[in-house]
């Protein structure tokens, strides 16, 4: 007699609700301090996350991109697929200090490719476009546009000046001392930075409230399900 471990949607929903409720309460118990319930929930989450990640990598990376080409009959495909296999094996050699030297090849390839892609993308995708975007026109136009462009210009310049520490001298006691001319610009840049950080912090509060609210709503739903 086969054991039917398949859950119906309602059962799955029920168990899901119960587990979710329990784990949520357990994690929220951290407000009272570190406790075993919190640690249980935390360790469970870490384990589930690692397991899910492993399955995803196995089924969405290793099998279609490594195993399947190696099993192909095309030698070209097999040869090309063996390159990541070799690099993978070299990376495993990092576990032993005696063979760790071979793993440096894989790491070097990863770091090199990653640095190149990131650096190129940052340069062409962020730095240059942002510089181009800061090159705004202050020609007389609409007042709003002019004011906006002026703020952009001032904010960009003063913020960059704020991070130019070489412009700051030293007092005889060794404390940083600003040059009189740049002291004002540095303070303006500091103001722009303060406003930006404040806005980001406000957004984080909104996101947190939204998440907390959603969690409370979910808990209520789970309770209704359990109570039902």
């Amino acid at each position, binding site marked *: 007699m086969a054991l039917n471990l398949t859950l119906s949607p309602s059962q799955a929903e029920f168990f899901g609700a119960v587990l979710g409720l329990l784990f949520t309460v357990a994690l929220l118990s951290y407000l009272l301090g570190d406790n075993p319930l919190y640690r249980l929930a935390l360790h469970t989450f870490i384990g589930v996350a690692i397991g899910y990640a492993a399955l995803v990598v196995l089924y*969405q*990376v290793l099998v279609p991109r490594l195993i399947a080409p190696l099993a192909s009959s095309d030698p070209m495909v097999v040869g*090309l697929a063996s390159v990541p296999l070799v690099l993978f094996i070299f990376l495993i050699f990092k576990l032993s200090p005696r063979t760790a030297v071979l793993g440096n090849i894989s790491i070097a390839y990863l770091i090199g490719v*990653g640095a190149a892609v990131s650096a190129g993308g940052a340069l062409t995708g962020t730095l240059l*476009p942002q510089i181009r975007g800061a090159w705004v026109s202050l020609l007389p136009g609409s007042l709003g546009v002019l004011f906006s462009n002026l703020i952009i210009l001032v904010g960009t310049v003063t913020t960059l000046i704020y991070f130019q520490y070489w412009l700051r001298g030293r007092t005889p006691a060794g404390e940083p001392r600003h040059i009189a001319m740049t002291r004002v610009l540095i303070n303006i840049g500091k103001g722009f930075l303060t406003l930006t950080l404040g806005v980001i912090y406000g957004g984080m509060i*909104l996101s947190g409230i939204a998440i907390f609210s959603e969690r409370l*709503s979910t808990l209520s739903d789970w309770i209704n399900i359990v109570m039902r």
Partner: protein
Amino acid sequence: MSQTEPLVRCSICGKENPAGATICAYCGTRLGSAALAGGVEQPSPSNDLNDLRSQLGLTDTKKPTSPLKEPEPDFSYGPAEGKGAPDWLSDILQTPLPPAPLQEEIPDWLQDIEAPPSAVPAQPAPITDETPSWLEDLERPASSSASMPSLDLPDWLAEAPSAIPATPPTKEVPDWLNETDKPAMPVPPPPHPLEMPEEPDWLTRSSEEPAKPSADEIPDWLAEVEGLGSSKAPAPAVKPPAEEIPDWLQGIGGPEPPSALSVEPSSPVVSSSEGEADWLAQIGLSKPASAEPATPSLAPPSDEAPDWLRDLIPSAPSPAPPEKPPAHVTPEGGDWISALGLKPTSSETLPSPESSPPLPVTPAPDITSEPGGTSAPDWLGLIDFSEQPGPSLPIAGEDLLGLSADLAPPPILPDTEKVPEELFSAADISELLAEGIPEEKPADELPEAAPELLAQIGDLRFEAITGQPAGKAEATPETVGALKDVTGVIRPELLFDGVTLQTRSLVDGTVITKDQTRRIELVQKLLSHESEGVSVSGKRRRALPIVRWLVSIVVAAAIILPNMLGFALLDPSLAQPDSVRAIYQLIETLPPSGHVLVAFEYEPDTAGEMQILAQALLEHLAKRPDLTVYAVSTRITGPAMAQSAFEQVIPTYIDDDEPGGRWINLGYISGEANGVSALTVGSSPGVPSPLAFDYLGRSTGITATRLTELSPDLIIVLASRTDDLRVWIEQAGRPTGLPILAAMSASSAPTAYPYQQTGQLAGVLSGVNEAIAYRTASGNNPAPSVMAIWNAQASGALVAALAIALGGVIYGLATRREQQEQD
């Protein structure tokens, strides 16, 4: 000497001076009042000495008639020409004597020595011109007639042509000569054996008549002297008490000149039968013609006196223990006169110790007696003939550096071989010299240092500094060098023992002062405290502070209460910004059968907010059934989020390969930026593209291998972090030029606006607020849950804002107050 007018005899030189003279014309001494009073003609000791000299057949046969005309003695004073006379002697010879000190300059003790009139003894025997001065001093009474028989120059010295000018000298004169008018000289501790001892009392007193030695005990030469002196019937000398007269002096009649002994160690006073007369004649003494004793003026020598002296005065009463002369001897061990640098001009040779027979012992004349007797010069009385042996001259082979085992040199004994048996026995001389050398004061007699000084010195010793026991240092006395046999010194390390070069530790130990030790202990204590750590005692700290709990409760209440109470603070129609309409229009204007790539770049932790945005956009896309929607993610949990969103939007989501509108969940793309870049530019041959398989591994049937081949019309990036958006912008948007729509969380939306400013983003949706606005713009009413979240977010944000503002105000006021208090 003329005696027509009252004359005053000098008590020092014995010369007669005119009455009324205050200063002796011969020696320059000040004539005392006693000498001036009465005009007593004192017997001149020089007369007796001159007589004796003439009797002995000495060269000088002239009798001095005037002090100024006294013939020059035959001696050549001083050493031979070219050798240089002693300074004291040359000064005497060449320089006039200084004026005698005034009466008030004479110390009291010296004045007192000038015996009072009551103490004036009987008139001593007259002193003839031939009487040696030193003999005259023995007979001269301590009366008013003369001052104390103090230091007196011998005739041989006084008769020098230029030695003693008549006028008082004006140039420098040795002090000992200046003090010749003093009756007695104070005797300091004699470091030098030849220093004059104190004036014995017997020289100062003149109340007693000197004891007359027996005739057989008086040497002939002395008897002659006394006989010559007695020819003038000198007044009986005032003899000092017998017990105060040294024995040896009692025998010979007086001390010798001080100069004779202060320059060089004196040789034993020896004389021979042949040379006896010579040296006696040289000093103004003549060989005694008979053994008649001179006027006894001294007590017979005591048992401690040397034999030779005892022989001179055998019957004299024993006076005070004689002061034996220092046991000095010339290197030659011979002639003391030649040692003085004197050489006779006559053919007569100096008496040698070997050949000179012993002089007959005659009683020493009274030094205070009148001429006829003899009196010892005062300077002889200063000789310390104590029994303490003094240091001897170095002899050949003596270890001067203390390298030998014995520091103390062997006692220098005189060469007794040359001592005539007749006069002096070798044993006597050696004994005399050995005993007569005044020795340095022993250490126990030295003045003791202050205890404090000794303690301070003791602290400077090596043992006190290093802390070594004193015995250890003292156990190793020095064996070489100037510090031989001395212990307690810092020993130099032996570096080279002559065989091998050995270098030992040059410092036995580090010398640390007490202050350094204290500081070292303090540092060690501080270091030990650092390693021990600090234990904080007190109550257990609470989990959360009250203020934080209060703020948390208030904010939570603001979030929960609206939903629990079921009231909405905000109207969805209020949330319709222009940017939302533009996005809506963008999706609305997508071409038919277009492709939309949706990147789910958020995790379950931010799903509560991002899911609302995703639902809003997907609902709008769902209204276009001709569009194909592809879901991808560079996060592990992205495909799960995509699947959940797909199922919530399209309940009738068709998960199959139906053409014409499909929603395909392509799953996970590994490598983040590399994966997106690979998706954009394509993968290598043989490597399947991410578009070929879905999240379950099933084939999608998509032949395109790169994003450009897929050519989507819009890329929607649902990202909770700015980095994820940036990756898609940099790797997908720039290379392909495809429009990218960003749906960001409220926390990361501000970082996405610069990209919108530069045109790299088609639009940005931020948070729950714009999600509701987008849903409203699309004509869909937001779900109650969404509204609840929106309301809760609004109320919670409001309360949080108020709390932040209030906290900022309170903190600012408190800081200002602190600054004011500090000011």
